[in-house]
Every structure is written in C-alpha cells, then in structure tokens.
C-alpha cells in the first residue's frame, strides 16, 4: 500500500468514525432549532454555523454522513447481489434467456427513472417515518440499478462458461450447479467487488440528487443530499463558506474511497 493510500485510508476511517460517533461529538441534536440564531456564521457554539431554521450545521453534517455512509453500501450490496443473480443466470443459461435478459437490461437503463421514482414515492404510504422513507429510497436505488452491473457480470459469466477450466471441470464430471458455485462464481468475485465499490459513491450522489428534488430524505433527518442542496446558490456560499463543508467532506470521502479501494483491487 502506498503512503497516499494509507493516508486516504486513515482519512476514510476518520470520516466513518466521526459520523458514527455523531452523538458524542455533537452536543446538540440535528433537529433542534435554535430559532433565535438562524443563519448564524461559524462560532464557538456552532462550529459550522446554523441553517435558516437555526439548526446546528455540524450536527446535521455528522448525522447526514451517518445516513449516507450506512445506506449507500447497503444499497450497493443489494444492487450487486441482484446484478450477479441476473447476470450469472443470463450468462450461464445463454440462448434466449440471455437475449431476453439483456434486452430487459437495455430497456431498464433507458427508462425515465426520475418520473418513476416520483410515482413510486407518491405510492408509498404517507405515514412512514423519515428513516423508513430513507430506507425505501435506498432500497429503490439498489433494486433499480441492477441493469448495468448485470450486463458486465453476464459477459464475465459467459466468458467463464466457455473457459478451458470450465470445460475441464465438466469433462471431469462436475455437476452443473457445482460448476457454477465452485468455478464460475469465485472468478466473478473481483468483478462484483468492483461493481460494489463503484456503486457506493454513485448512490451517495443519487441520494443527493433525490434530496434536491425534495424526495428521499424527509424532514427533519439530514443527509448529504439535503445539505448539498444548500449549495445550489453560489451567492450564499460567498456569504458563508462553511456551507461548503458537506461538499468538501463528500469530495474527501469519494477520493479517499477511490484511492484506497482501487489499490486494493490490484
């Protein structure tokens, strides 16, 4: 591991640790409104200032990190599991199953997801807690993003199925399910791992986009998406550079992520 990757790893751990220890690090709750000091600049009481309702930005940032960091990997895991299931089935079965699955994947990629997410959100019962709403959002992100991964894994599975060692395994009398489990799946693991690591930052950003649309994360729960929403207006940033904190944190997180895990894959 290079020094840069080590530094990145330490930073990454620090980000995760601080978000998990949000309750300890921040004396106030993310939802407490200090209504007498809205839009406060950074000061001793509020190191990053407050938002327009007087809520401590630091507390919101830390709790928001927790939401995003916890759920993005979970959604990525779900997405990869689905991709693998569908991709391997298609690649291994071949023939019309493969063609039909890949046509479905193409269709899936080209659907207008924003509209669909809006509709799905409107169909969810109204009285869900903010946490449930978030879970549903990430669940949707995970479930709906199977297609690109499935295509990659399908081609991998298809190539492995035709490989010399798969042929030899069959020539040795290896039953088909065992061939899949013992010979094909282990070789797809690096591919699936890559899909997983790529999906995490993508989901964090997707949640951010949904947050900007007023979807996904409901009041009063903070998320990186909601916090980044405040950055839409450059005029306000000039007045309060502390607004940039979530963007900086996201950038640090993503770049650390990249440097640590792309190294690990090698």
């Amino acid at each position, binding site marked *: 591991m290079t020094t840069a990757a080590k530094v990145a790893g330490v930073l990454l751990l620090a980000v995760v640790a601080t978000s998990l220890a949000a309750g300890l690090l921040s004396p106030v709750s993310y939802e407490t409104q200090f209504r007498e000091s809205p839009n406060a600049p950074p000061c001793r009481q509020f190191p990053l200032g407050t938002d327009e309702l007087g809520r401590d930005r630091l507390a919101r940032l830390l709790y928001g990190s927790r939401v995003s960091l916890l759920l993005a990997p979970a959604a990525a895991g779900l997405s990869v599991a689905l991709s693998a299931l569908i991709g391997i089935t298609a690649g291994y079965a071949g023939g019309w199953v493969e063609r039909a699955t890949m046509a479905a994947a193409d269709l899936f990629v080209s659907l207008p997801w924003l509209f669909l997410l809006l509709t799905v959100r409107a169909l969810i019962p109204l009285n869900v807690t903010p946490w449930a709403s978030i879970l549903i959002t990430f669940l949707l992100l995970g479930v709906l993003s199977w297609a690109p991964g499935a295509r990659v894994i399908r081609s991998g599975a298809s190539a492995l199925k035709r490989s010399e*060692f798969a*042929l*030899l395994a*069959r020539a*040795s*009398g*290896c039953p088909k399910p065992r061939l899949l489990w013992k*010979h094909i799946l*282990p070789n797809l693991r690096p591919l699936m791992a890559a899909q997983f690591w790529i999906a995490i930052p993508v989901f964090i950003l997707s949640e951010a986009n949904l947050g900007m649309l007023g979807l996904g994360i409901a009041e009063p729960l903070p998320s990186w998406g909601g916090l980044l929403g405040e950055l839409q207006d450059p005029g306000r940033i000039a007045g309060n550079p502390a607004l940039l904190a979530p963007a900086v944190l996201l950038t640090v997180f993503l770049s650390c992520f990249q440097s640590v895990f792309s190294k690990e894959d090698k």
Partner: protein
Amino acid sequence: MLETVRNDFGPLLSVSLSASYPDRPDVLQGVQFDVQPGEILALVGQSGCGKSTIALCILKLLGVKGGKARGAIRFQGRDLEWATEREMRAIRGREIAMVPQSPLSSLNPALRIGAQLKEAWRAHAEGEWEAAKPRILQLLESVDLPCDEGFLRRVPSQISVGQAQRVLIAMAVIHRPRLLIADEPTSALDLITQREVLDLFARLNRELNMAILYISHDLLSVAALCHRAAVLERGRIVECGGAEQIFERPAHPYTRRLIDALPRVRQPSGIGQTF
C-alpha cells in the same frame, strides 16, 4: 470379472464419427477407430485437423463449443449416443478422463490446487475429503509433484507449467479411469518436462492398465509412447497401424509429408528404446 470378459470380446472404445461447427462444417467426416483395453493409440495430425473435436465428441461435450456430432461411440460395449446427460456425467472423469492441452488456463485461477483436486475427487466420490487426502498426496508424489500441504494451498499462478500439467494428470487419474484422453498434453512444455510427462503416461499405462488416446501433432512423442497411431487429415483418418509400421513404412502421402517434416535425428528408431 464381467468387465474382463467383456473386454475380451471387443475394443474398449469404438468410434465412428462425423462432426461440424456452425462456422466449420465437416470437421470430422466418418472418422473410425478403436482403442483396445490398455492400449495407447495416437491420433496424429496437423493443427486444426479436428483432433480435439474427437476428444469432445467422445465425452459428448461438443455442444459446449457449439458443435454437433453424428455417429456412434461405443464404450465398454455401451452405446454412448443414447446416454443421458446424467449417465454421461457418471462416465466423465470416472471412466473416461481428459488431460487438456493448455495446462495453466485449464486450472481455475481462483481455486487453490488442493481445492481443484478436491473438486475432481468430489465429482465421483462420497465421504470425507480429509480421509481421502493421504491417497491424493500419494498420487501427487507418483506424478512427481511436491506432496505437502503448502503445495495444495498454492493457486495456479504460483506453480510452473510443468507442475500444472502434472496436477491436471493427477486430477485425471484420481478415479483410475479406463480411458485417458490426452489432448496435446506436451505442447506447452519444454523438452525435458515433455520427456518426464511422457514417462509418466507410459508408467500409468503400465501400472494401471489404463488405455490412452494420445492426441498430438508431435510425431516424436508419438513414436516414443504409442502402440498404434492413426493419422488424421482434414477430418478423415488416412492411415492407421502400428507405430513402428507407420514410421518406417508410411503408406499415405500425407503421413510421409508429416515424417519428412521432422527435424533430422541421428537414430530415429532408437528414441523409443528407453521405454
């Protein structure tokens, strides 16, 4: 006893085959040959003449490569063309085993050597792997491989090509098959290792009374190892006979061309003497 009786009545394997791929029609055109029990038969021919297709046909795995075969395969008095996939699975690896052409790509890169051996064993065996292990280690020793746990823990990228080929041979003979199909087993090896592997085949043939269908374009190794040879050209067998007869009195012009193409050696007939 029954098997012995049956063996007395006819060849171990009797083949009469035609085969084609979607992009290569008539890869095999009425190829006929027999393999007697305990015999080493060579299938000789240039690259692309359909030798490997024969191996896949016998195991009924041509479909994996998208090809189609017609004809009859009789093994131990049984017509394999009517065998179900389930029955074929019971034959593959136990009755007929294969040693493939390219050792390194035929080993699963993600599995340790031990696991690959275990998989080959598990395909036709019940019971505890730990109990079977001493026998497997013995087998490794018999194919001149390190027989320690450390070797079993290696992955294919950590062993040499020669070692990989021996692992594949060990895997193939784990269930003491009646017939071993060796598809260009020496083409990826250096000369010294080739020699050692050929030694190994000869020993297996002797000690286990294992018939070997030795597919090769390498006439020298054929001359050294085989009892009989069949020469394949463009999907047909053009000449078949005893190994010495073919070398000394080639009948077909194609066979003659093959032999003429050999590098000159001082004592061509002496090569086989060490065996």
